[in-house]
């Protein structure tokens, strides 16, 4: 059998499989760190967007809106190009992995902020009033009453963002990020074996993204039921 899916091609691919698994590990590692930092950014920016009691808080909210607007409306590709090419010239030396984590975190953080902000807004006002009537300070109300409740509201949308983040990590192929898509692109290019490479790479992404998507769908269903 000849053609892109010949048995010989499959055999060659399976010999190189450990290379792909290492790339897969790198994809998962970058995604995990990116997610953790994106969540921190999201919570911080989400709180900043919803607390506008005084001038300083309003200024912070405006800065956060500017950050979100830029990072949501420009492609991650350009953002990664900027971090990868400009930072070293300014004396900041980061490994490709760190550039990847930074880019994914800032990009996903801009979306996470929207999710957190609307989750905070979705907690009924009565909760705030009840907490204040019991003598809670603003910070206590936020941390002990509002945020715990908004976690449940934000969870389905945030889970969908995790899938996007993992898929978006594939842009790092362009800066030789060493993750799965880079391995797939460079290995298939130098060995001229495309068929098995694309099928197996697709399956590897599917293996992590599909379960998370299904969890997100279940969470969505449950939150619709509870409303």
């Amino acid at each position, binding site marked *: 059998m000849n053609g*892109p899916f010949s048995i010989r091609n499959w055999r060659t691919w399976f010999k190189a499989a450990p290379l792909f698994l290492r790339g897969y590990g790198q994809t998962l590692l970058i995604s995990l760190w990116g997610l953790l930092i994106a969540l921190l950014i999201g919570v911080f920016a989400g709180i900043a967007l919803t607390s506008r009691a005084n001038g300083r808080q309003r200024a912070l909210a405006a800065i956060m809106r500017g950050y979100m*607007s*830029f990072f949501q*409306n*420009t*492609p*991650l*590709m*350009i*953002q990664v*190009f*900027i971090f990868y*090419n*400009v930072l070293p*010239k*300014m004396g900041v030396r980061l490994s490709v992995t760190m550039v990847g984590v930074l880019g994914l975190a800032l990009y996903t953080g801009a979306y996470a902020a929207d999710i957190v902000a609307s989750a905070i807004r979705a907690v009924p006002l009565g909760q705030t009033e009840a907490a204040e009537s019991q003598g809670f300070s603003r910070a206590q109300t936020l941390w002990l009453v509002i945020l715990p409740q908004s976690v449940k509201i934000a969870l389905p949308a945030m889970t969908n963002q995790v*899938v996007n983040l*993992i*898929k*978006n*990590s*594939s*842009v790092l*192929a*362009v800066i030789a990020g060493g993750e799965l*898509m880079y391995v*797939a*692109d460079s290995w*298939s*290019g130098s060995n001229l074996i*495309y*068929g098995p490479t*694309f099928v197996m*790479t*697709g399956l590897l*992404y*599917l293996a992590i*993204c*599909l379960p998370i*998507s299904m969890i997100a769908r279940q969470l969505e269903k449950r939150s619709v039921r509870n409303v």
Partner: protein
Amino acid sequence: MFETWARAFQKVFTPQILKFLGTGLLNTLYIAAVSIALSFIFGTMLALMRSRKLGALTVFSTMYIEAIRNIPLTLFIIGMRFMTRLPPLESGIAAMTVFTSAVVAEIVRGGLNSIHKGQWEAAYSQGFSTVGTMVKVIVPQALRRIRSPLIAQFVTTIKDTSFCAAVGTYELSFTSKIVASHRTIVTAQDILVVYLLVALAYYLVNLMFSTIARRARDNGAKGFVK
């Protein structure tokens, strides 16, 4: 400090570079526009197949949508470029259509599901066939409800065209990468000016669509009374 910036602007804002980036922008808009138009057609078909009980067709569309949505677009772009003989722009369009159809299908399906069952029953009772009900009653109402997420998908699609840079298609991101690695573009400021100029172009196009999407949402909320 000020001088390096001034020189950076001088170096980047030359007719040659701007013309080159302009071609990139046009290619980006071309890929995005054709992809979204094709994706709308195929996406609607997939959504109809998935939302009605049509046996094998429903199974196919469900599997297609779930599989494609959980694989990165980059893989389709690389695969389409190297495994077919399509020219660069067309292979980009083909890959983006394969991917975006699945995304649009879920948006359309959400709209179809939001139409009350009574609409079907009313149309049947008036003697409409299934196809007639779908085309004349359900789809028009669903389309109005999904206007906003559909326009928001434009923004995503325009950003997604940047993934075509992975295979060296001359869209805006790849042309900017070429400009940034030109021998005259040296300092951090030079490179920043190139990328921020390109980011601004993406930003303005996307801002236009985000604003339209928000307007559509505000209007859509009013229901059937305009």
